[in-house]
């Protein structure tokens, strides 16, 4: 450990150039190796850094190990969750705590290689805002896990327009304004890059190393497919229409607006077998009723869009976001 950089970091309260955010959950045995590997890799970079470890409510003594590490390493900053809130919350908290202009996120289970951080940051500095890791040679050989994730990644990259092979890889580097302007909830960390693309970030991808999981299980399954699909629709909407949701709702109600008059016509027009037509001859009430329902619902959905628009206006979310973006960009 180079003492010079340590004391420099302590004395001047200058924010570090690079923050590495790692969510950790029940990784007692991995924490020390992780810290060593990170320290080793980051010191090779020769720039000021901090490591933000977010303990996601571990119960196996990870905390004590973390505390004892923090006592000897001033680069380390800890966030403790009271209980397990999940990876996205941990990432969000880590991003909130991180002070660097460049922020790197990675997994706490050592599947990512800290040695790749340097390359990601280098790539970022070539003029990108988000650089995603791509586990090109995945170490999970199970087809049952590879295939769903392949499909999911394909769909995500298609729909969101962020051409990324591997959205599931946690190893990513961001400029800080990207994570500051995006607020994560639920499983959103998967879509960070896509959301970033939505707010105009330049995205790049870099193959990274990936190690086989040594312990524990990961959660992939068919049930995820539906969730990913639903999320996709949501993401698509958020990227494209979040500023003006009424457009999206118009799009949703449009088919009903088209169908409703057609049903009315169908109900009021009676065709004869000899090919002649007759208006109001013998009204088909079922079609008229269906048309009425369609019209009603179309109206309803359209007005929901109006509500959504109001919600967006009231929340000042986009004004805030733009100001953050401008400020960071001009710094």
């Amino acid at each position, binding site marked *: 450990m180079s003492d010079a950089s340590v004391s420099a970091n302590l004395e001047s309260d200058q924010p570090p150039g690079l923050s590495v955010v790692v969510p950790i959950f029940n990784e007692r045995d991995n924490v020390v190796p992780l810290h060593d590997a990170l320290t080793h890799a980051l010191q090779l970079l020769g720039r000021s850094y901090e490591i933000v470890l977010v303990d996601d409510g571990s119960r196996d003594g990870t905390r004590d190990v973390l505390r004892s590490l923090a006592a000897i390493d001033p680069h380390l900053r800890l966030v403790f969750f009271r209980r397990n809130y999940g990876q996205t919350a941990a990432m*969000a908290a880590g991003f909130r705590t991180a002070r660097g202009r460049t922020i790197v996120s990675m997994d706490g289970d050592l*599947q990512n290689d800290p040695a790749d951080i340097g390359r990601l940051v280098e790539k970022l500095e070539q003029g990108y805002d988000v650089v995603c890791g791509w586990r090109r040679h995945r170490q999970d050989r199970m087809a049952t896990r590879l295939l769903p994730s392949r499909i999911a990644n394909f769909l995500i990259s298609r729909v969101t327009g962020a051409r990324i092979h591997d959205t599931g890889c946690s190893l990513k580097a961001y400029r800080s304004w990207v994570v500051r302007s995006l607020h994560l909830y639920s499983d959103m960390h998967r879509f960070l890059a896509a959301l970033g693309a939505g707010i105009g970030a330049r995205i790049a991808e870099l193959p990274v190393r990936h190690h086989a999981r040594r312990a524990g299980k990961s959660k992939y399954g068919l049930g995820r497919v539906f969730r990913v699909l639903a999320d996709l629709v949501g993401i698509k909407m958020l990227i494209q229409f979040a500023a003006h*949701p009424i457009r999206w709702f118009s799009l949703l109600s449009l088919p009903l607006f088209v169908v409703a008059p057609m049903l009315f016509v169908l109900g009021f027009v009676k065709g004869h077998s000899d090919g002649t037509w007759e208006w109001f001859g013998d009204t088909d009430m079922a079609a008229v009723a269906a048309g009425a329902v369609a019209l009603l619902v179309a109206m309803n959905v359209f007005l929901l869009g109006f509500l959504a628009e109001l919600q967006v206006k009231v929340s000042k979310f986009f004004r805030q976001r733009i100001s953050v973006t401008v400020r960071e960009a001009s710094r």
Partner: protein
Amino acid sequence: MTAPLVTVVLAIAGPDAQPRPVVEGFGKALLTAGYRCEFVVVLDGPAARFQQEVRDLASEWPLRIVQLEGGGLGESIALSAGVAKANGDLVVNVPPYLQIEPEDVLLVVKALEAGADCVATWRHSRIDPLLNQMQSLVFNWFLRLVMNMPFHDLNSGTRGFRRQVLEEVAVYGELYRFLPVLARRQGFRVVEVRVRHREEKGRAGFYGVGVYLRRLLDILAITFLTRFTQRPLRFFGYVGFSAALVGTLMAAWPLYLKLFDNESLANRPVFVIGAILAAFGVQLLGFGLIGEIIIFTQAPNLRDYKVENDGPATDEHSEAQVVPMAEVAPVVAHDAQPAFEGAAPAPEAVVKVAAEPAVPEQPLRVREILPGEDARWDSYVSRHAHGTFFHRTGWSRVVAEQFHHYPHHLVVEQGRRWLGVLPLFLTKSPFLGKNLVSVPYAVYGGVLADDERAQQALLQHAEVMGRELGVGYVELRHLEARPGERPRSPLYVTFRCELPERAEDVMARIPKKARAEVRCAREPAAPAIEGKRRESFGITVTPDGSVDELFALFAENKRRLGSPALPRSWFQGLVDEFGKAAVIHRAVLPNGNTIAAVMSFCFKDTVYAYYSGSRSDVNDTGVNNWIYCAIMEWAVEQGYRHFDFGRSRADSGPAKFKRNMGFEAEPLHYEYLLLGQGAKLPEFHPSNPKLALPRRLWSKLPMFACNHLGARLSRYLP
């Protein structure tokens, strides 16, 4: 450590409370079991009747009184107010009479101590009227059905929880009885314990209709709140999309008939139902979307996690923690073993080593390398005097990637200091059986350790691991001798030399005969002059060969010798992994034909000439001597101090060639730990006479077959 403080909260609202037996019963039970306890009595409304009694109790017990203004505020508010005054982390909420046997409160507290955040109780051998029991049964059954919750008795008034549960789970109105459900939904650990029922106050028989209706609505509200607020679009989108799809399909057929066969829709109810379903689906989608937008835009305010406010460690903390960590270390190793895919080495081996020193010292701990420690491993290897190129993790990565041998790299550490490493691969082969090899496809490998103790720990661990994996032997390809006696294979020798200071001196080192060969290859092309000089060829050697050139020559050479060649992807993998540290030199005739190529590796101050190939028809040009001479000159220019010519079998052609180049043969210390039944040193090597026939056959195979089969076979010839 002091005993944990348990806070018992009871709210007194009705006239039939009995605070004294409650306080005394629970107080005695908790104190006898060694807990500290305090009571918080919440008086909901003007309970003048109990004020004197409670005040008397307060003089005998640690008891706080909370008087709520107004009154009739309900259990939820009373509970929140009571918990706000609690000092302890563990809170037990009880009704104001002895509902359960007081001793059973210990079950609740114990469950909390064991790590539960919230404890629900299940009254058994109930004593209230059968009718009430039936109602309760139906209520809980319905709840389990709707919400998929494993609770049997939510109406039980006794609950235990940690303070933070109430700080995070908002309860209002009558929702307090759903506290375990809500807590569980939010990710808290909730358990149910069975307690003995003692007394029940409250109505017997049926309640009013309104009560049942309220309960039902409560259940619905809870279901909704807990389920759909996280990601509204997930649920609404899913249901909405399904409804729209089903509805459209239902309406499609009648519509088709109407359009083309002019059949009336009026007598087809399926059309109307379908149309309504479809419209309903679209509307649900819309609701999902608006929900999602609200969540998204409000996410900055929604921070749905709580951070513990004990940030970085204070000094006293760290002191307290550093010491236990050292003690914990061996236990950690113990726990971690089963996770390592059956390769669980018995910890006795480690413990034995650790037990030797008389002074209390941190024990040695052997474990497998964890992902992410590659950089640390590499820096250890480059610091260690015996560390070679093949010890590097890069080599291991390429081996694992290309040949799918499974690595079991071992590290021995004391505290956090690494004392040694041992790269090991589990190789399986029909020819050689199952073995641990350090390192496959390399000429050097084996243990790197700071001292003999660390080496011993590593080897013992490897031995235990080997036995558990059922391997035949552990092969340690040591270059230098290591302390200790182990079976050794005398088969191979290696050739190394120190490089001279200047590139010009390289030629001078080479014996006369070989030097003549080098000259005839290097000097500008000229025909032979009878009696005066040999023909010279003007071959140039440059460090810019490609993988393709090397592989073509290498594969051809190998076939000639009758052994399978490594696949092309192996060489490509090495180049990709090591970049500039893997150099390919090629020898080119003046006419532009490449006739020989050598792949060398650079590590520390050594250049390892490792893979080579040359055309069979150019032996008389002296190109083989020249290319190695040129590599040495290149190495000197680049500032390397040592040249490694690689291993050969002691009495083979290549060994002779290397001797002719002026190299001394050094014996290699390939050592074996023989583990399996009747295991012996491997005999499957090219100079084994039993293999002469297959080798001859191999050399007759067509080139493409050779390459294809070779690529497959080389996996089994580590």
